[in-house]
């Protein structure tokens, strides 16, 4: 307890500590050791991403520069993604059939619109 005497009063800690401060440290920092109960790293990372998604609207997250889930297939509905890819391929094929000379242009336009 002698050490405690020299310390300044705690700031913003205890039950009033901001949840983000606590989760940031408890979940994201600290020593990583694989226990007997396997919670692999990816799970915790996914979890924090999910939390961000739960608590922030997508727009807000984008505003803060968090947008990497958009390219992470694990975080978007695989089925929907596949569906979109298939639809895209079909559309491109149809465009190419309609106007074979301008395939590239048509492709660019269709991407801009989507």
């Amino acid at each position, binding site marked *: 307890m002698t050490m405690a005497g020299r310390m300044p009063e705690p*700031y913003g800690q205890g039950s009033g500590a901001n949840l983000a401060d606590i989760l940031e440290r408890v979940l994201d920092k600290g020593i990583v*050791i694989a226990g007997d*109960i396997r*919670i692999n790293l990816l*799970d915790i990372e996914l979890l924090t991403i999910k939390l961000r998604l739960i608590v922030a609207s997508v727009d807000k997250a984008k505003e803060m520069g968090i947008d990497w889930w958009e390219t992470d297939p694990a975080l978007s509905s695989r089925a929907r993604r596949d569906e979109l890819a298939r639809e895209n391929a079909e559309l491109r094929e149809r465009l190419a059939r309609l106007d074979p000379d301008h395939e590239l242009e048509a492709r660019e336009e269709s991407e801009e619109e989507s």
Partner: protein
Amino acid sequence: MTGLRYVYAVCHPFDAPLQAQLKGVAGDPPRLLSHHGLIAVVSHVPERDFSEEPLRRRLEDLDWLTETARAHQSVIDALTVVTTPLPLRMATVFRDDSGVRVMMEAREDDFRRTLERLAGRVEWGVKVYAEAEQQAPAAAPKPASGRDYLRQRRSQVRTDEDMWQRAEEFATRLHASLSSYAEDSRLHAPQNPALSRASGRNLLNAAYLVPRDSSEEFVELVDRTKDETRAGGSGMRVELTGPWAAYSFAGEQS
């Protein structure tokens, strides 16, 4: 109670008693498991929440997660008062005491090295927020024409841009001066306002490793900048948290 073993931290043996009413995750008071001259701080936790499948589900339950994270932190916090703990990541769970001992033996050298590096040091968190000032409706006369409107809009945008630039510069300068005072520093990602419930944009979110003995000066240093930002309606805010266990410095060698 049997059950699994939840490990909060590893530390050197210490004499001072832990806070008497201290409860860990799942309400079990933390116990000290001594092995090879090191201490693992451990709670017994039920399998129904902490074995593999339930834990996976529980971790996605924000209420459960919040409660567990706070319990974890309160044990680390209590340890920080009496010693220098090496905090483990939340939800490090073993089947029994001997599993914990095996882990301690395997990591013994790492633990000792890191404990030595962090001994007598704590972590302080410093954040800078900035907020564009809401223009008071009275201050801006109603635009008489389209051109007026555009002129007003342009000047508002320019004022905002100036503010953001000043705030960025302030944050950079603050980080530089605090880093030079601290033994080590880490920059964290800006915080999500929905989780932190803080207003304004989080421009700087940093952690500083500071010896306990010079913590008071560090806090004063931060307090002085707080006065500076409060002075002129700058739209900036400096927030200090701590002392934390050296979470941000425990994981990697620097």
